[in-house]
C-alpha cells in the first residue's frame, strides 16, 4: 500500500468516525420503510390511487379523517351535521397552520374543493353529489348537494385541503393534466398534516420530517422525527433489506416469504384483513356470450347456472391451498369494516359439485359448456393462481373454461366500459367511502348508457327491485334505517347469485421487532401512529 493511499484511508476512516459520533449525539428517530410502488405525485388531488393518496395524506389533511379503527373523526373540521337534508355544514378548526406558516381559512376549503373537481384532478367523481360549496363565515362552510347525501363526509375524507395562496403563488391552481408542463405541486407539498416534505427524488426516495406545529401534536405526540421512504420493487430485495436492518418496515410481504420472515426474531409480521372482496362475475346481459360454444342463448341468464358455478367453487380449498390461509372466505360482496356489512347474512352456499352438476343439467347443460375466463396476473394477491384453481373446479362439473390471465393494463381494457368484452371474469372491489352503497351502485345497479350508474357492473346484472332499493339507500339519512335497507339489498344480491363472492385477502406487513403501528384494512399507512421502541 503506497503512502498516499494509506493517508487516504486514514482520512476516510477518521471522517467516518466523526460522522458516526455526530449521528449518535443528534439521536433523531428515523423510520425507514419501503413499498413496491412510489407515491408518484405529491399533489393530493392528482391521483385517485390508494397508495399515492395514502402517502400524501401524511402531509395533507381533509376536513375529516379515519382513525386507527377506520372510524371517521374530526380533522380540519371540528364538527359537521346536516342542517337540512341537502346541506352538510362543517365547522373549521381554529389555529391550524400550513407548513409554510400561513393560517387555514374557509377560503382554502372553497379553493381546494374547486381544485379537486377541476380537470387534472382525479377526485371529481367522488364529489359528483355536491352542487355548491358556500362559505357562511370564516369558520363555517356548507356543502350543498343535489339530493340527500348521507356518505358525503366519507368522501370528504379523501379531499385534501391545500393553501390557496401557496397554489396561486406557484401557479398550480389545478392539478397537472398531462397536456401541460410539470406542476409545482407534483414535487412540493404544503399541507397541514403531521409530516412535512423534506426531500423528494421521484421513484427513488422521499424524506418527510415531523411537523413541529401540527395542531394535534399535544393529544397525539409523534414519535418519529424523520421518515425515509424508498421504493423497492423486487420482493426478494425488499425482504432482504428488512432482514438486514436496512429498513424498519415493508409492505407487502410476498406470500411465499411470510413463513420464513416470521421465524426471524428480529422481525414482526402484521396480518391485516383487507377490505377488498374478491369475486367472480358473469355476463348476464348479452343474448349470446362472446366467448362460449353455446350459441343463440346466454347460459348465465339462468340463475341455476350461476348457482351451479357458485356451488362448484371450493372456497375452503382456495383459502387453504392457494392463499395459504391468508384470506377469509365470504358470502357477501362487502367485508367486515365496510359500513353495511351484516354478519348475520354471512352464509355461503355450500360447496357441492353434485348439486352443481344437477343444476346445470336442469338448465339444459348436462354436459356442461365452454366459456372464456378473464383474469389479471399482477393486480391481486395470487390472482392467476386463484383463477387456475377455479378452472380446475369448474372442470369437475363439466364446464371448460379458457383462462386468459394477463397484465392489468390489458385485462381492464378488455373487461371494462365501454366494451365489457368478457363472459366470465374475476375482480376485486374495495368501496372507496367504506360504505356498502358504493359497491351496490358500482357493481349491482343496472348499467346506464352513459356509464354513470353501475360502471363496474361488467356482467350487466340487472334487478329492478334492487335498483329501487339502492335509490332509497342513497338518500336515507337515518343510519339505522339505511343499514336495514343495505342488508335487504345484500340479501337480494346474494340470493340472485349476481356474483360468486370468494374471499377477502389478508395482506401482510412486516417490521423490525421494535416498531409499533396501526395496520389498516384499506392499505392506508398512517405514519402518525408509528412508534419506535
Amino acid at each position: 500500500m503506497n503512502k498516499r493511499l494509506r493517508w487516504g484511508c486514514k482520512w476516510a476512516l477518521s471522517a467516518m468516525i466523526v460522522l458516526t459520533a455526530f449521528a449518535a449525539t443528534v439521536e433523531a428517530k428515523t423510520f425507514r420503510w419501503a413499498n413496491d410502488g412510489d407515491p408518484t405525485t405529491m399533489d393530493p388531488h392528482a391521483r385517485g390511487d390508494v397508495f399515492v393518496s395514502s402517502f400524501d395524506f401524511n402531509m395533507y389533511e381533509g376536513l375529516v379523517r379515519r382513525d386507527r379503527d377506520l372510524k371517521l373523526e374530526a380533522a380540519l373540521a371540528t364538527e359537521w351535521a346536516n342542517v337540512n337534508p341537502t346541506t352538510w355544514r362543517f365547522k373549521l378548526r381554529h389555529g391550524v397552520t400550513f407548513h409554510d406558516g400561513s393560517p387555514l381559512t374557509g377560503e382554502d376549503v372553497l379553493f381546494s374543493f374547486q381544485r379537486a373537481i377541476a380537470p387534472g384532478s382525479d377526485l371529481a367523481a367522488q364529489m359528483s353529489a355536491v352542487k355548491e360549496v358556500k362559505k357562511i363565515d370564516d369558520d363555517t362552510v356548507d356543502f350543498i348537494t343535489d339530493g340527500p347525501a348521507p356518505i358525503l363526509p366519507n368522501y370528504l375524507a379523501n379531499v385534501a385541503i391545500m393553501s390557496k395562496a401557496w397554489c396561486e403563488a406557484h401557479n398550480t391552481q389545478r392539478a397537472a393534466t398531462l397536456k401541460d408542463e410539470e406542476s409545482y405541486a407534483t414535487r412540493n407539498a404544503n399541507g397541514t398534516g403531521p409530516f412535512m416534505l423534506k426531500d423528494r427524488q421521484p421513484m427513488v426516495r422521499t424524506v418527510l420530517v415531523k411537523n413541529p406545529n401540527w395542531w394535534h401534536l399535544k393529544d397525539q405526540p409523534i414519535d418519529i422525527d424523520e421518515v425515509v421512504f424508498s421504493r423497492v420493487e423486487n420482493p426478494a430485495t425488499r425482504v432482504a433489506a428488512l432482514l438486514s436492518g436496512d429498513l424498519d418496515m415493508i409492505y407487502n410481504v410476498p406470500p411465499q416469504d411470510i413463513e420464513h420472515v416470521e421465524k426471524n426474531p428480529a422481525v414482526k409480521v402484521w396480518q391485516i384483513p383487507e377490505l377488498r372482496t374478491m369475486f367472480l362475475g358473469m355476463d348476464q346481459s348479452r343474448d349470446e356470450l362472446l366467448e362460449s360454444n353455446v350459441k343463440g342463448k346466454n347460459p348465465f341468464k339462468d340463475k341455476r347456472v350461476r348457482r351451479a358455478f357458485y356451488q362448484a367453487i371450493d372456497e375452503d380449498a382456495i383459502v387453504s391451498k392457494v392463499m395459504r390461509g391468508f384470506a377469509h372466505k365470504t358470502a357477501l360482496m362487502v367485508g367486515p369494516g365496510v359500513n353495511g356489512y351484516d354478519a348475520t347474512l354471512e352464509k355461503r352456499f355450500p360447496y357441492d359439485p353434485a348439486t352443481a352438476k344437477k343444476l346445470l343439467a336442469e338448465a339444459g347443460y348436462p354436459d356442461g359448456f365452454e366459456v372464456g375466463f378473464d383474469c389479471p396476473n399482477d393486480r391481486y394477491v395470487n390472482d392467476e393462481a386463484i383463477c387456475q384453481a377455479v378452472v380446475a373446479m369448474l372442470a369437475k362439473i363439466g364446464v371448460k373454461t379458457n383462462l386468459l390471465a394477463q397484465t392489468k393494463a390489458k385485462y381492464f381494457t378488455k373487461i371494462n366500459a365501454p366494451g365489457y368484452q368478457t363472459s366470465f371474469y374475476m375482480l376485486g372491489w374495495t368501496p372507496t367511502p367504506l360504505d356498502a352503497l358504493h359497491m351496490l351502485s358500482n357493481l349491482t345497479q343496472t348499467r346506464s348508457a352513459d356509464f354513470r350508474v353501475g360502471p363496474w357492473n361488467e356482467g350487466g346484472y340487472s334487478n329492478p327491485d334492487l335498483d329501487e332499493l339502492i335509490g332509497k339507500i342513497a338518500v336515507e339519512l337515518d343510519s339505522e334505517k339505511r343499514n336495514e335497507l343495505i342488508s335487504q339489498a345484500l340479501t337480494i344480491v346474494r340470493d340472485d347469485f349476481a356474483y360468486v363472492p370468494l374471499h377477502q385477502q389478508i395482506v401482510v406487513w412486516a417490521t423490525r421487532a421494535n416498531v409499533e403501528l396501526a395496520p389498516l384494512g384499506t392499505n392506508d399507512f398512517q405514519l402518525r401512529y408509528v412508534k419506535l421502541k
Partner: protein
Amino acid sequence: MLAFIIQRLFQSVLVMLTVALIAFALFNYVGDPINNMVGQDTTQADRERLRQDLGLNAPFVVQFARFVGHAVQGNFGLSYQQARPVGQIILEKMPATLELSFMAAFLALLLGVPMGIYTGLHRSSWGSQALLAISLVGVSLPTFLIGILLILIFAVLLGWLPSFGRGAVVHIGWWTTGFLTAEGWRAIILPAITLALFQMTLIMRLVRAEMIEVLRTDYIKFARARGLSNRAVNFGHALKNTLVPVITITGLQLGSIIAFAVITETVFQWPGMGLMFIQAVSFADIPVMAAYLVLVGFFFVIINLKSPPPARCLRVPCRGRGGHGSPTAICGGAFAARR
C-alpha cells in the same frame, strides 16, 4: 474518413428510426395506460377525455409521426406515471446507469484480462482449471440469482454492505455521483460485481483463447528464437496482439452492459435507466419506454461508430516493431489468419 463518418451517421439515424418504429408497434401490446392513471371512481367520460388528451385515440402512424417530430426537437413529452418531462427523468437516471456500467466494465477488464493471461499461459495448471470452472458459474447462473445470492451473503448474513439503492450521492451540475461518499462506494460494490461477472468471464475466455492462438504463431517462435525473455515474449509480443479483439469486443459489450443493467438494477433497486424502463413497462408509460429504447439504440450506434479507431491504433506498435527485427509480414499474417 469523413465519408466513412457521414455514412455511419446516416446509418445511425436509420437504425434509431427503426428502433422507434418497432418500439411503437410493440406499445400496442402493453395495454391501456389510462387504467393505471386513474382511480376506480373516475367516470368513463373523464377516462375518455384523458385518452383524447394523451393522443391515444389517434392512429398508429399519427402517434409515431408526432413522437418523431417532438423527439427531433428533444421533447419526449411528459411521463404518464410521474407527470414530469421524460428528458428530465432520463437525465436524472443516466448517471446511475453509466457509473454502474463503467464500474462493471472496469472490474471485468481488471480481473478478466489477468485471469485470461494466466489461464492462457498455464493451461493445465490446477489454478487455471479452477478459474475456468468458476467462470462457468459466471456464464450459466442468471444475473438476478447471482444478485440475490450476493445480497443474502453480504447484506443479510454478514451485514457488510447495503442491500439496495445507491447510497448518498453528490450533485455536480446535473450529474449525480456516488463516488464521492463512502456510502456510495459501499452501495456500488454488489451491483457492479453482479453486472461484471458475465463480462469478466467473457473477457477471460476471450483473452485465453487469443493467447493460446497467438502463442502458437511463428512470430512468437521467432521471438523466442531470438532469446527474448519469457516476460518480453508473453507480454510484449503475445499480449499486445491479443488485446486487439479484446478491446473491440469490450467496447461493443459496453452497449450490452448498459442494456442488460436492467436486471441488475431491478434486483438492487439501483435508480438507473434500466429500472426506470421496467417501471415504465409495468405502468404502460409509453413516453418513457419510447425514449429509453431510442436512447439505448443511440448508445449502440455511438459505440459501434467509435469502436474501430482504438483497435486500429493498437495495431500500429505491432507493425512498428518491424524495425527491431520481427518480420511485419508475419505479424500481419497472424491477423489475417485470425480475422
